[in-house]
């Protein structure tokens, strides 16, 4: 059985990290895969560090419990690099994607990433503010993850971003998020 791709999200309560994990799961499901998306459950407080997880596989996923060795680590808030151990358990071929205005080389140094690990940065919050006026980074993070990992086709991801926001939000917000996802895909930098 091919091993599942395991993803760990670091965010802060209220940022939409869990929703992003769900949108990614939906997108990978549309792509024909098996998926899991779940947060680490605890007291839910706005601003507190939270973790969420994805498993994506071409086969049935039987493993439950938190992701211990994430192939992909998505950090939606750069201040978390000082607050929690975001590199914990990451394998030698891990991919880090960080929401920051800083250069990816600086981020690499900050994370003390190994040469075999890949580090990407994306100014997801700035893109979000420019695209739909709110500092919610996850659509651009999703675009960046799509580019950095190739886990799902971009058009499938966009379809699912649209579906996810389409239920509750006005067309302007949906379009803003689609645009943010596209810009995340285009503007993510490796370092």
């Amino acid at each position, binding site marked *: 059985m091919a091993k599942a791709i395991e993803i760990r999200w670091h965010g802060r309560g209220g940022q939409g990290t869990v929703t992003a994990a*769900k949108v990614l*799961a939906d997108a990978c*499901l549309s792509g024909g895969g098996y*998926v899991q*998306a*779940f947060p680490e459950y605890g007291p839910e407080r706005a601003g507190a560090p939270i973790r969420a997880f994805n498993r994506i596989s071409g086969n049935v996923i039987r*493993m*439950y419990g*938190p992701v*211990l060795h994430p192939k992909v680590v998505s950090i939606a808030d750069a201040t978390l690099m000082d607050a929690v151990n975001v590199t914990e358990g990451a394998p030698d071929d891990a991919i880090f994607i960080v929401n920051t205005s800083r250069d990816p080389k600086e981020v690499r140094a900050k994370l003390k990433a190994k040469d075999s690990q890949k580090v990407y940065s994306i100014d997801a919050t700035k893109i979000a503010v420019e695209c739909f006026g709110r500092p919610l980074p996850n659509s651009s993070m999703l675009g960046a993850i799509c580019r950095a990992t190739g886990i799902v086709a971009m058009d499938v991801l966009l379809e699912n971003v649209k579906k996810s926001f389409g239920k509750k939000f006005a067309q302007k917000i949906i379009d803003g998020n689609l645009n943010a996802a596209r810009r995340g895909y285009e503007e993510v930098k490796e370092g």
Partner: protein
Amino acid sequence: MGKIVAVTGNEACAQALKQINPDVCAAYPITPATDLMQRFSSFVNDGKVDTELVLVESEHSAMSACIGAAAAGGRVATATSSQGLALMWEMLYIAAGTRLPIIMPLVNRALSAPLNIHGDHSDGMGARDTGWIQIYSENAQEAYDNTIQAFRIAEHLDIRLPAMVCMDGFIVSHSIERVEYIDDADVKKFVGKFQAVHPLLDLDNPKSYGPLILTDLYHEYKRAQHEVMTKVPKVVLEVASDFEKMAGRKYGLFETYRLEDAEMAIVVMSSAAGTTKDIIDQYRDKGVKIGLLKPRIFRPFPYLEIADALKHVKAIAVLDRADSFGGYGPLFMEIAGSVMSMASKPAMINKIFGLGGRDYLPDQAEGVIDELIKVAQTGKVPAVKEYIGVKE
């Protein structure tokens, strides 16, 4: 084929209830219950079902209202979790003793004290002796499939007993995973039209529920209740066979995994069985002959069938996500009951794991298998019951 979706276990169960469209649901849809009934109540609000939803002031009242509605002649469902089930306790016996086929998804979560609403099997195991059929699910797909099958089992004219469909709290109930939904029309056809038996609302034929039966016949009444339980496995298998024809997914009284040629076995229920299967594959790759047995129907417990499936192994580890303080874990006691009928008895160990949402991690399964290898080699059991995954 039905629709493939990414949903939580709770969403999947709420979808099954929506497709079945019960006549009455009585529920107390806030904590300690989960969002399962809240999701179902939105189907009621949106006119997706024509269920009469009775929102009551407690879980005790929820079960009481279900009993009333079921005795009146309706198809009835509710859902609960944790303290909610504990508060229903008195009425659970009345539902079963009155032979009312109420269906109840149970999100397995811990019991107080200390206060904790994370996943374990303490609630379900506490309801072991209530007379309800208990079906345990490994994942959201099974929780959905089992909910649909539970209606057919419980409402079967030879059975007429309430059934709870269990899934692990948070791990399955609140986590999103891939589920294949069956088409509405197929579910409706599979479950069929509800047949009321002795409905109170048949006013031309008045009857009485809940009579006083003292020393003259209570004992016989309880024996009859046990006897009807012994008929459940046959119905479970018939329903599973029909279900497989419709949905292509196979169910039994229990599931085995790489057990046929195994020298050692792990017995574990629900989501932990999934994780354990992955670890078993790793040990199989190294040539270790280990297999798994996952009970699905916990009440009635298929002692002899399980004994037959385990009779060739040298050592068994039973993993319990609940404890009976001062006793062995509840699943261990059942497996010991199965082993009793074997001519040559395997060595047995009991591990208590995952209480109050403590993660069941791969290294715990590896530790159990490593110990089991030693037990199988030496036939010696240093300690029968131990907690694993403990912070020291």
